């Protein structure tokens, strides 16, 4: 199951021993992950403390980190199922995320049965949980639609098809003809360029369903006062709560994908990644496996998209550019394709250092430096050349960090592909099986179980050869 499978001790009782070993290993990876995430949080909190951040700012910072680590780790896990396990080169991740959140939005938005005012669009008014399921299923179905014909293409063509499909999705939601229409009496639509306003609140909906909304609101008031979070502390707690919900989903993704990986199903996926023809020659219907794995991954990407955008208040087509797909790819490559634990780590590292880190630095600089940055690159360069004054340049850099950040990501990607294509964890022996693959006791202890038809060859004399 993981790198240290070999020293798992299953001698006493195959079942219990195996389970104990598995649990021990799971612990180990979980500890690794926990350590990394806590380390990231500590780093940010210390950074914030050194900069005299207020409590509200600190909590917001944490919630923000929670959010991005959660979503990127989940998306990297889903992509790992496609690329790391099955070798499906999907660079249309954002398209499936878009299908997920758009479907959920249209299903869950308040219905409008009369022609709504300009700029507002109704939905079908389904409960949010049902709409989420709908979104996930739509993403899976769409994945199936893409996969059925495209899976027989070679990897680079498949990649171009998927990125093309994700752009087709974006053009479709952008298209003004689909902005508003009437279906079965409901005025619904995809919103066109101005997008859709999400008139639901996932945390409130969840709390209300649990009957906890009122106690929770009361709690936020008192706790907010106690922690001196200032007026209206509820949004702060909402984002923390959402972070926790994401954590639950992340654990769900992790356990699910580990189970997929460590199963006969995952074994076939891995084999397809290695050599599809050889896998077929062993009687595996590789097409069926590929379609199942692709649709399942798409469903998870749809769910990832829903969790990513459901709390943003609104969605616009410009958020669904291919850029985000490549972010997920970078996260996966940092962690190492093929490794479940690595995917989560890659997601966390990407979110904390490449995605949020530069913005944190930008905020810090802008809070502590009074002078304004110059407007253009030229104005920043000339003092550097004429008077060796680096200050305008540094300010310009921080001011335009959102662009430079992507340059850095690009460099990281190139560096990784040159020096560490297998990811930070290196090659990991994650054996694809539900059980430990050590020699079971029985087969050597009771040779009677082996029919003696193998031509007199000693059954367990295997240690004698070269």
């Amino acid at each position: 199951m993981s790198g240290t499978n070999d020293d798992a001790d299953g001698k006493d009782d195959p079942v219990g021993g195996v389970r104990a070993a598995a649990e021990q290993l799971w612990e180990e990876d979980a500890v690794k992950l926990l350590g990394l995430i806590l380390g990231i949080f500590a780093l940010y909190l210390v950074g914030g403390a050194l900069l005299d951040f207020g409590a509200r700012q600190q909590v917001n910072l944490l919630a923000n980190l929670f959010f991005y680590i959660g979503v990127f780790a989940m998306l990297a896990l889903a992509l790992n199922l496609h690329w790391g396990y099955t070798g499906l080169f999907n660079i249309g991740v954002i398209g499936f995320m878009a299908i997920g959140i758009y479907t959920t939005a249209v299903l869950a938005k308040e219905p409008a049965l009369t022609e709504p005012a300009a700029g507002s669009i109704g939905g079908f008014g389904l409960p949010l949980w049902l709409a989420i399921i709908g979104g996930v299923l739509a993403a899976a179905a769409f994945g199936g639609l893409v996969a059925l014909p495209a899976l027989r293409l070679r990897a680079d063509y498949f990649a171009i098809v998927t990125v093309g499909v994700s752009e087709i999705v974006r053009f479709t939601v952008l298209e003004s003809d689909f902005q508003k229409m009437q279906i079965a009496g409901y005025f619904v639509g995809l919103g066109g360029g101005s997008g859709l306003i999400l008139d639901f609140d996932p945390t409130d909906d969840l709390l209300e369903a649990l009957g906890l909304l009122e106690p929770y609101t009361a709690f936020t008031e008192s706790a907010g006062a106690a922690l001196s979070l200032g007026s209206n502390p509820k949004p702060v707690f909402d984002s923390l709560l959402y972070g926790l919900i994401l954590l639950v989903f992340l654990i769900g993704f992790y356990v699910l994908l580990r189970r997929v990986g460590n199963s006969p199903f995952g074994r076939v996926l891995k084999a397809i990644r290695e050599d599809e023809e050889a896998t077929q020659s062993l009687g595996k219907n590789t097409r069926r496996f590929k379609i199942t794995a692709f649709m399942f991954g798409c469903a998870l990407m749809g769910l990832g998209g829903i969790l990513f955008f459901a709390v943003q208040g609104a969605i616009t087509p410009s958020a669904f550019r291919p850029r985000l797909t490549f972010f997920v790819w970078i996260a996966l490559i940092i962690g190492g394709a093929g490794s479940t634990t690595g995917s989560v780590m890659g997601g966390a590292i990407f979110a904390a250092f490449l995605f949020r880190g530069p913005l944190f630095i930008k905020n810090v600089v802008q809070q502590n430096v009074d002078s304004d940055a110059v407007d253009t690159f030229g104005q920043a360069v000339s003092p550097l050349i004429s008077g060796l004054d680096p200050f305008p340049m540094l300010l310009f850099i921080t001011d335009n960090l959102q662009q430079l950040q992507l340059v850095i990501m690009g460099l990281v990607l190139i560096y990784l592909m040159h020096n560490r294509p297998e990811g930070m964890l290196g090659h990991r022996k994650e054996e694809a099986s539900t059980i430990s693959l050590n020699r079971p006791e029985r087969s050597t202890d009771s040779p009677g179980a082996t029919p003696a038809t193998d031509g007199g060859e000693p059954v367990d004399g295997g240690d004698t050869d070269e």
Partner: protein
Amino acid sequence: MEVIPMSDTGAGVETNAPDADVEIDEAEAHDSEVEEAAKHTPRGVPLRVEGLRKEFGGIVAVDGADFAVEEGSLTGLIGPNGAGKSTTFNCITGVHEPTDGAVHFRGEEISGMSPDSVANRGLVRTFQIARELEEMTVLENMMLAPKGQTGESLWRSVLPGLRSGIMGEERKILEDCWEMLDFFEIDHLAHEYAGNLSGGQRKLLELARALMTDPTMLLLDEPFAGVNPSLEERLLEHVHELREEGYTFLIVEHDMDLIMENCEHVIVMHQGRMLTEGTPEEVQSNEQVIEAYLGGEVE
């Protein structure tokens, strides 16, 4: 898989009901060589190739191959480079669809079937250049092979109740795998990545893995290419042992001597055509064969 791979032949061995899409008639026919198969093909001839022709965009790679492989035999398919051996192989195993002609396996026409369907009917191949799944361990390679594993369903793999159900099956498969590794004496490599194995070890693994699918007939594509002499010896020993247990073998080789020494029946191809077939002695004394080998492209 309940069937211990090496034990599914010989009278009196209990035939476990195959659990999935394994053809029942195939197992029975194989066990007792009875009527079922005889209805379609002459007794004891599991593989029959008739008028096989394969063109690639106008180039004829195989031009009318006709031959049959007898039950329990070790049949060799030889010929100089470019004789069409590999194409014939690929047409039999479903990699290519023949342009014309038919391939029958155990009374069923299998030409045009997908490679996995062919393999699932008990006709399993190995590759000329061993196709190990390199970043999987030897044991993972082995455990992949058994047919019809219930855990190959996504839902059974992830859902809590169902997952525990497949673990028993996994333990059984694992036990079989260890036995098979023992038989081939590569058990010390069980946790090694297949990519780290030597050429000869890969060939052993590939044969072992093919056997895990519980086949009745094996097609070996140059199983001895790039294998050192001592391993070649061992591989041959295994092949003979397995043949004695009732497995049928069709071996493609271009090493004439090896085929002549080990096979009881030899088919010779040349330039896409069948040249002759017969016992090694018959083939060796055939003028055309000598000419093809000496006059044509010598290896």
